[in-house]
């Protein structure tokens, strides 16, 4: 007879999450932030404001839109609208993550705080890794990863700003391309439901179509229409298989 394993303290899972800073996704995101620092340096946005928005907004696409609004002198309400439209995707991403990491005793205020650290990279990483962490340690694991990743990138942006005003074109092109390629491989590896493959395929195709016909709302339309189609189609097939 073996005794049940002693549960690890929360700090253990937090530290394990922190160690994720040395993972492939974290390194790829840091490279993207080096590119972002070069972009803002070229746009002459003061470095303290760039560091401030890195911590406050965190999601990279939202920041690129925010910088664009600042440069064009857009009204604060116009900027709010543009950024908020790009950030609607945070809602289903967070909503899909929360049931995976919370326990029945996790306080909502804690989830509200750690939700700030959700962006595509942290989301993909967490959806892939939390299955290996016992449920009680998942919130601490995600917090350790998310907080470390955010703080590291704030410091990184401050350090490289100005130092990397211009890359050779091949380097900046390859840095840019790392992100989509990494997302593709990660989503494929972390998928545990058939519906994920369907949503990925339909989303890629519809993403192109809507970017051409409705570029302002393409991400949102693709998510809702493509995601619903993938879910509906996969469910129909699942039911037919069950009936057989």
């Amino acid at each position, binding site marked *: 007879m073996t005794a049940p394993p002693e549960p690890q303290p929360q700090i253990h899972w937090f530290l394990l999450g922190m160690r994720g800073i040395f993972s492939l996704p974290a390194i790829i995101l840091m490279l993207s932030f080096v590119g972002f620092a070069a972009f803002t340096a070229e746009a002459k946005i003061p470095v303290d404001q760039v560091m401030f928005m890195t911590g406050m907004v965190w999601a990279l696409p939202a920041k690129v839109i925010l910088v664009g609004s600042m440069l064009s002198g857009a009204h604060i309400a116009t900027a709010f609208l543009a950024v908020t439209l790009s950030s609607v995707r945070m809602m289903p991403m967070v909503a899909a993550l929360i049931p995976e990491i919370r326990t029945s005793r996790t306080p909502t205020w804690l989830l509200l705080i750690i939700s700030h650290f959700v962006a595509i990279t942290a989301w993909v990483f967490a959806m892939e890794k939390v299955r290996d962490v016992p449920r009680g340690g998942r919130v601490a694991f995600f917090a350790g990863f998310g907080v470390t990743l955010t703080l590291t990138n704030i410091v990184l942006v401050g350090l490289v700003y100005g130092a990397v005003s211009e890359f050779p074109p091949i380097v900046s092109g390859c840095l840019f391309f790392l992100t989509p390629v990494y*997302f593709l491989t990660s989503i494929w590896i972390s998928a545990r439901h058939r519906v994920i493959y*369907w949503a990925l395929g339909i989303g890629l195709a*519809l993403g192109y179509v809507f970017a051409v016909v409705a570029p302002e709302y393409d991400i949102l339309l693709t998510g809702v229409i493509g995601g619903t189609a993938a879910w509906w189609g996969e469910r129909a097939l699942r039911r037919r298989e069950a009936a057989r």
Partner: protein
Amino acid sequence: MSFGGLWPYIYIAVAGWLATDLWRWAGVIAGNRIDERSEVLNWVRAVATALVAAVIAKLIFFPTGTLEASPLWLRLGAVVFGGLCFFFGGRFRQIAGIAAAIAFLAAGLALLGV
């Protein structure tokens, strides 16, 4: 706009932070009500994945910066070549797939003299 004084910080806080975190909080409220084994969660997963897929498609089909001037066939070729190495890459398929795609792209850019 001018980048002096307190205004840029207020601008970033309202149009950046609030505009983004509102949706994260909405996600927590929604996610808290979803049962882990429910069909609703399946739908939410599909929508979230399709959203990320749309971002990926946009980065590949309509890149900004240097790649804006690169031909589409080169970018698609890089993804397909990376995909092949990914599916036949065995244990190291993620690294193999990513490295192959980037190497293909870099070689193409060099040959085209971008």
